[in-house]
């Protein structure tokens, strides 16, 4: 099947024109603008994910045309995934899980009074990544979806293992501590029923724990509460109002001009932008693997290939740029399996498919067929167009959000910290309206506080919680089918993924040994 986007027939051209007229319609543009502001708001509030933002939109899409409904969803997601970087940078609480990979980097720059740099880098690279993802979606959807369609539980198992490996490797202190954090996270993920067996595990008889540990309150606790507690402990009575302001207020002048950093990065690293955006696009296409894994993997690759990997974890703009580009690139390509198979690439596209069905549109290969289903092809082109408009709109709206958000850290910490706790309380409760989640947040906050005291990184814990269940599920699926090594390495994709994992774990040790040997020889 030829891709209509590459070989426009008359009907395809008409479809493109119709799509463009629909997207540039005044009402649609108003919907896009409103969704952008809404997305920024929700994304910037820790505890409210992009998925939740979209779920809350669904009742409103009843009142919109199909193109407007899709425009609202796409814009909301694009903006909220970027906006997740704002609290990650300013208070080290990722607004959405996709920002967790580089929260420590961005925050450590903030502590040095350079918060505008990571935020500007994140904005510009988000837009570049988002546009790249759109191009991939438009150009390669049918072909690439065929590859993703070949993934069985074995390939998925290796993919999740790769994502988790990356999370452990990127931690800056030691790989062992990273691995420890990862395992603790995965163990927390096994609490409750699990996906595969109707047997409660590690619940100690509690009814609440049967559900398992919800990662949203866990993430708020690990990153948010632990940070608040650390700060509160550090505030002593000697501190008067002036001292309590973070270094930011007076340090701001010393920070480099953010535009300069962005221009320098963009000039020197255009290849790595392409690389991380491609990583994001490929990962976004795989069902279940969304923007958050894309960010982790892009960050790990960026660190591995960087001339100065030491800086990663303590304020690397390169790492931030690569990861933030990848998570936005993943958003576009998540629509590929959704449109081609009707199988969502992430939870947001799952909701979007529901909305499409409500509007009487059945996703499937026919959506690219301009001769028999011109009205559906219009929608495909409209989705591309909306992604482009949303990403371009992100620039001005994101700029305002960055500068508005930066006012936050000028508030003295002794006022800010209690207010953050209040929002953590609401955020952990809001997802499921559950008090148990508030307890989870508190316990995780204390756990995070303790782990940090032993310099164990917190990022891998969160990723372990999020992906541990998925990894176990694919593992159990695979061993119930056929537990032999031959089955696990039965396809070229599996072999490639497995070798990558092996390489990531052993390469640093081998290169260290190699160096030692050479030193001894010399």
């Amino acid at each position, binding site marked *: 099947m030829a891709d209509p986007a590459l070989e426009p027939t008359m009907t395809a051209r008409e479809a493109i024109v119709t799509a463009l007229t629909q997207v540039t319609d005044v009402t649609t543009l108003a919907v896009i603008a409103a969704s952008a502001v809404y997305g920024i708001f929700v994304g910037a509030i820790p505890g409210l994910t992009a998925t939740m933002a979209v779920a809350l939109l669904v009742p409103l899409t009843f009142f919109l045309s199909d193109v407007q409904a899709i425009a609202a969803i796409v814009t909301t997601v694009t903006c909220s995934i970027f906006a997740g970087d704002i609290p990650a940078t300013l208070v080290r609480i990722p607004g959405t899980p996709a920002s967790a990979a580089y929260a420590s980097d961005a925050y450590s720059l903030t502590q040095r009074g350079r918060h505008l740099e990571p935020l500007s880098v994140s904005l510009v690279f988000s837009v570049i990544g988002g546009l790249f993802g759109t191009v991939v979606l438009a150009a390669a959807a049918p072909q690439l979806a065929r590859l993703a369609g070949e993934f*069985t539980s074995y390939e998925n198992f290796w993919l999740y293992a790769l994502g988790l490996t990356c999370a452990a490797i990127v931690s800056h202190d030691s790989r062992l501590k990273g691995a420890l954090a990862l395992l603790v996270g995965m163990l927390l993920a096994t609490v409750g029923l699990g996906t595969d067996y109707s047997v409660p595990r590690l619940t100690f008889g509690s009814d609440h724990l049967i559900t398992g540990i919800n990662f949203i309150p866990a993430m708020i606790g690990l990153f948010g509460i632990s940070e608040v507690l650390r700060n509160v402990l550090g505030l002593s009575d000697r501190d008067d109002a002036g001292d309590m302001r973070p270094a930011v207020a007076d340090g701001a002048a010393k920070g480099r001009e953010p535009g300069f950093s962005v221009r320098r990065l963009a000039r020197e690293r255009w290849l790595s932008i392409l690389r991380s955006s491609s990583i994001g696009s490929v990962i976004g296409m795989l069902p279940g693997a969304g923007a958050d894994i894309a960010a982790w993997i892009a960050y790990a690759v960026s660190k591995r290939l960087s001339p100065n990997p030491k800086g990663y974890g303590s304020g690397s703009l390169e790492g931030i740029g690569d990861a933030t580009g990848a998570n936005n690139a993943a958003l576009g390509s998540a629509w590929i399996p959704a449109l081609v198979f009707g199988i969502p690439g992430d939870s947001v596209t799952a909701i979007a498919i529901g909305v499409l069905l409500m509007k009487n549109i059945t996703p499937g290969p026919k959506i690219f067929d301009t001769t028999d289903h011109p009205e559906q092809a219009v929608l495909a082109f409209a989705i591309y167009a909306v992604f482009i408009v949303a990403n371009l709109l992100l620039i001005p709206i994101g700029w305002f959000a960055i500068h508005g958000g930066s006012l936050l850290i000028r508030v003295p910490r002794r006022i800010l910290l209690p207010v953050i706790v209040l929002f953590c309380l609401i955020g952990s409760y809001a997802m499921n309206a559950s008090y148990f989640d508030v307890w989870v947040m508190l316990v995780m906050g204390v756990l995070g506080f303790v782990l940090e005291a032993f*310099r164990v990184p917190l990022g891998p814990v969160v990723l372990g919680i999020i992906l541990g269940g998925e990894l176990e599920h694919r593992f159990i699926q695979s061993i119930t*089918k056929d537990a032999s090594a031959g089955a696990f390495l039965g396809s070229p994709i599996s072999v490639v993924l497995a070798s990558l994992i092996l390489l990531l774990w052993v390469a640093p040790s081998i290169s260290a040994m190699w160096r030692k040997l050479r030193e001894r020889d010399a």
Partner: protein
Amino acid sequence: MVCLTGCNEPSSYPNRPITLICPWGAGGGTDAVSRQIAAHLETELGVPVGVVNATGGKGVTGHNRGFRARPDGYTLTMATLELNMLHWNGLTDLTYHDCIPLMSVNEDYAAVFVHSDAPWETIADLEAAIRANPKTLTASGTASGGAWHLALAGWLISAGLNADDVVWVSSTGAAPSLKELMSGGVDLVCCSLPEAATQMKNGDVRALGVMSPQPVPGFEDVPTFVDAGYDWTLGGWRGLAVPRGTPADVVKTLTNALDRVTSGETTILVGASQVDGEVVRRRQTFPQFMEEQGYDNTRRGPEEFQRLLAERDEQLGALLTSDVMRSVNRDRFNAATFPNALLAAIGAVLVLLVVQRGLRRSGSASESPIENASLRRRSVSRKGVIACTLFVLAIAVYPLAAETVGFVILSAALLGLMLWSLGNRIPTCAAVTLVVVPIAYQFFAGVLRVPLPRGWWGW
């Protein structure tokens, strides 16, 4: 946004927002039906009806939350077939006796799907293949022991085979299972017809049969298992219920409202399009929605729903407590495999860390400067420790007291206390509290419709 304020008629039910608990995730079938019902109930009852996805624990969470809520009619639950299964599995002691059934809105029957290139044309072909080579074919559709697994196992038993003659590969739902089916990962998928409608329409999968008493409207060319000669039917019902103890007049109001909704007497706006410059609004009834989406549209009133609950409970109880089904769950790999492996790995890493530290100590006395710095930073004031403890306590008080006291009052008190403990002056504490709490309340409860705790003054 229709009726957030200004529809307060105290003492008459309903006079405040209603929560509809959906035990399954956003984007799925139960979620779609719940949201649709909620929108219709909202127009019918005149108060906002918000859907909360209380997921997890294979439905344990949602059903427990819904049926253990205050029986005042402000918490409805979209119960599903799992209510008839969970207590047999020993996952909860909640049964259908803990709820008052209002109305069941649909029953989607299980169907068996194969890849479009599969060699089997009929259910009989499939049965012959399973009989010839037991334990070689794999099937998926839901988690082990889930509704669709039971449906398949029940059919195998009724055909005189063993429940585990087809290897069940656990999955998270119909969509990922269908993807596995299409990529050749499994041989069969058992799920409902609407869940696979897209893939059927695209010609990727074929339905061999459906476990309904009669052919399903919209899918008339799919033969039933009964017609193929098997005495086996199973459908996943969805229905609304309230906790036991809900006042009779509230139950009556809700049943009447649901009756009007499910009989198509209410409409909601589903779209607007411009035709020749004029805005044409499209309104839709609930049955129209169900039909359009390919969901079954059978509704049952309170008594009939109660009978259905009793019947399914008996049928699934017999299956779940039978020896054949138990043997399925006694596998080489079980629920403890993965956690045990993780615990072993954590132990190994801890040992390695200790060894590494020991090596470093003996290798050179000098510790890294960073570690020294972090040690020095540990010198903390007593005031800091007190404030830190107070913060932890404040967070712990919230889940304990919020439901009785109410969000605004409690969070204002806690926020004020935390501010004060950090040494802010009292006027500052008061000002920050008075600005932040009402704004937070308005934004979350008003705009985002988060059901914040209500408490003493409903505030």
